[in-house]
């Protein structure tokens, strides 16, 4: 249990996937202009990342490893993630329209969210067992969501703040992300 807690806290705060590992920055800057979209994106990432973490772990250990073809891991994983994302999108759209409304439009964005592939690969590299892999995936996604929502909250304030023309938009966004990352540094001593 202690180990699981460490894994969760480590993934959310200390090695935050966005701010410390730099995974998933394109959507981070893209959809963080409004709180509403940020929350939707965060939800979608938690959903897909957990699912993808589980499936890729199974594929690695029951398909790639037995045949000794771990070298096509990247290849297999990305294809699986793309298929999974598209499948989930199609499924939600038809079957659970309410959830699709909330998450659906963010799903396609996740295919090229490197956080998903990144976490899947980290799961394998770190040699997690299935349970750990799922926990780590979910926690990483939660960390992503946390940073995204915090960032969107800050960014909404930019609308009424005077920013030098040259760094308006993405520029100030990046600098702010830097400060957010700095504040996340403070969690380093937690464990």
């Amino acid at each position: 249990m202690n180990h699981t807690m460490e894994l969760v806290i480590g993934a959310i705060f200390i090695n935050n996937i966005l701010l410390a590992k730099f995974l998933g920055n394109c959507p981070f800057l893209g959809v963080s202009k409004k709180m509403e979209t940020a929350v939707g994106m965060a939800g979608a990432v938690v959903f897909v990342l957990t699912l993808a973490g589980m499936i890729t772990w199974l594929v690695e250990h029951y398909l790639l490893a037995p045949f000794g073809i771990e070298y096509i891991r990247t290849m297999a994983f990305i294809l699986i993630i793309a298929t999974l994302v598209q499948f989930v999108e199609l499924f939600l759209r038809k079957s659970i329209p309410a959830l699709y409304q909330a998450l659906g439009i963010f799903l396609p964005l996740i295919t090229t969210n490197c956080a998903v592939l990144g976490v899947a690969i980290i799961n394998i590299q770190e040699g997690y067992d299935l349970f750990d892999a799922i926990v780590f995936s979910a926690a990483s996604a939660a960390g992503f969501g946390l940073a995204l929502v915090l960032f969107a909250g800050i960014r909404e304030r930019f609308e009424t703040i005077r920013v030098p023309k040259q760094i308006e938009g993405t520029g100030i966004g990046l600098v702010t992300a830097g400060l957010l990352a700095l504040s996340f540094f403070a969690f380093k001593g937690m464990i």
Partner: protein
Amino acid sequence: MGISALVMLGIGLGAAAILAVAARVFYVKVDPRITATEDALPGANCGGCGYAGCASCAEAIVAGKAPVDACIAGGPEVAIQVAAIMGTEIGVAEPRTANHFCTGGDRAERKFHYEGALDCRALFDLHGGDLRCKVGCFGLATCVRACPFDAIVMGPEGYPEVSAEKCTGCGTCERVCPTKVIQVFKLSDRLMHFNNDHECLPPCRQLCPAQIDIPSYIDLATKGQYAEAVDVIKERNPLPLICGRVCPAPCEAGCRRVAIGDEPVHHNYIKRFVADWEMHHPQAPPVISPETGKTVAVIGGGPCGLSAAYYLRRLGHRPVIFDAKPALGGMARYGIPEYRLPKKTLDFEIDEILDLGVEVRCNQQMGRDFTIADLESEFDATLLAMGAWDNSSLRCEGEDLDGVWKGTEFLQKRELGIKVDLSGKRVVVVGGGNTAMDACRSSLRMGAGEVTLLYRRTRKEMPANQVEIDAAEHEGVKYHLLAAPKRLIGDEKGKLTQIEYIKMELGEPDASGRRRPVAIEGSNTLMDVDVVIAAIGQRPLKDWYTKDLEERGLKLTRWNTIEADEKTLQSDVPHIFTAGDLWSGPALLIDAIGTGRRVARSIQRFLLGLDLGFPEGTFVGPQKLAVSNLVPVLGVGPRVRVSQPELQVADRIKNFEEVDLVVSPESMRDEALRCMRCGTLCYFNDEQRDAHLSGRPLRKKVGELLQNSPTLR
């Protein structure tokens, strides 16, 4: 090597199979434009556009929320493709420009005494409020600095002015403005805007059936910006020359001057002044949105049809006006006599509209010269606006006698070139409306020896414009009030000789609030007469209502008007719309103009496949907000209303020269300065509304603000 290839093959096949099955099982129909746009977009799902993925970006583009060049990863090629799908071109797309535009709330009244931070946003964050300004602007030019195209400068009034040529509608100014007084909108949004209850609406603007932004044009007129003032009027009313002359100005009823015991501001002096000025100083035609390729048949070239055609044209559609008469103008031409509205002026105003690219087919009568099927084959939508030309019957014996005329038929004779000689004749006009007044005054000008007006109620109840009633009296019309015709008596040749009328008295108020006239038994009186003109009311004709229209499901009410949605004016046949008198029954010219613009909006949305409904809180017609009158007006005293210059009675009575003259620029300005700038000096801010609703006293005395105003003291 073999295994890796096999596994990849397996995964590839599996992925294809899952997706193929899923695509079939979970198939959901979507707007083909969304699919097409999505196909055109890169599919990189990078999020650079601010939307979550290419699919949602495509949805936003099709929904009009995102520009066609929203995609960052795709670059210009993709933007061109998307523009083609959306049926626009980049750069040719309808220009969006920024404007300061107060929509009320707590923003319109702020006064700052802070000199530290020189940025609107800083002030807003630090203090929240208190700048007094016409549009709720802090005036620190943050938007000017923010504009990437240098399209904004600070005007002499202390708030930003936008150059329409330079503005690209990028929206930067809107984003930086903390009070959102500067907003970016498209021409069509602006033209098709209707009053909304969250806006800061002065009472005159609430009451104007066309919803003209009266304080704005008055303000522009005081500054000598006459062309701009006309532009403001024409955003709501394309016929200022006509309205400036004949509109009874229902807006004046709400004027806050009345609340302080003064006469209302005479909007029409100002409107007519700027419109006349524009007639003599031709301006560039207004901006027209990109062509949509849609055509609309406008049946009836009266004020309503002209108004609808004008707005449809400015929105980029191609309206064609059909009119049964040889010339356009409808009641404005054939119902309003020359001395009130010179035909030269009317022609100028109509030509201005036609010059925008509106086609006209005159002498074409619905049901006689063309059918609805003809229209359906040629046009995307049809507007029926033929007005109300049928005169109500007097419902008394002898109506068929020679010498008994109907009001509108009499009035149009002169315009149709039919000579009428009334020299020395005794004329009795029955009715109390404007048609009756016009008939009286026209009869005088045609040489009538004696003109008597018969009206069954008192002068107070007359629906005609007060100025008309007075003018007719000045010109020598005799008023025979509280009298109703009972019988028309003719000689053996069928020629009218006498009218028998009965005296009336006022009883209990009826549904319309006017006291019901009751006949006094036995008071029948005979009067010698040569001509009786019945002008007791009109209703739409029915001759156009042919079987094919009935078969299509178009329904008429028992007043011969068309049954249509109260707000959108769409009839039961989706592509047929109606407006003006044909929908409302006889009403004011300005009502017809207002419904003309309203129906143009509905047709526009119908043509674009959008929902016809209005946003919540919209007022489609005149509607007085109860709260408008509640705030006391301190510190403002009466100020004499400028009187209308007119021809001397002797000079005008024998001809059809225009009676009312245009006021001088000085008088116009004097009158314009009487305006208390309601709504721009906002008396209805959130705080005051809350105070009113909760019964608390107001924090601020409006009078204090007004005392500081040079125009109001």
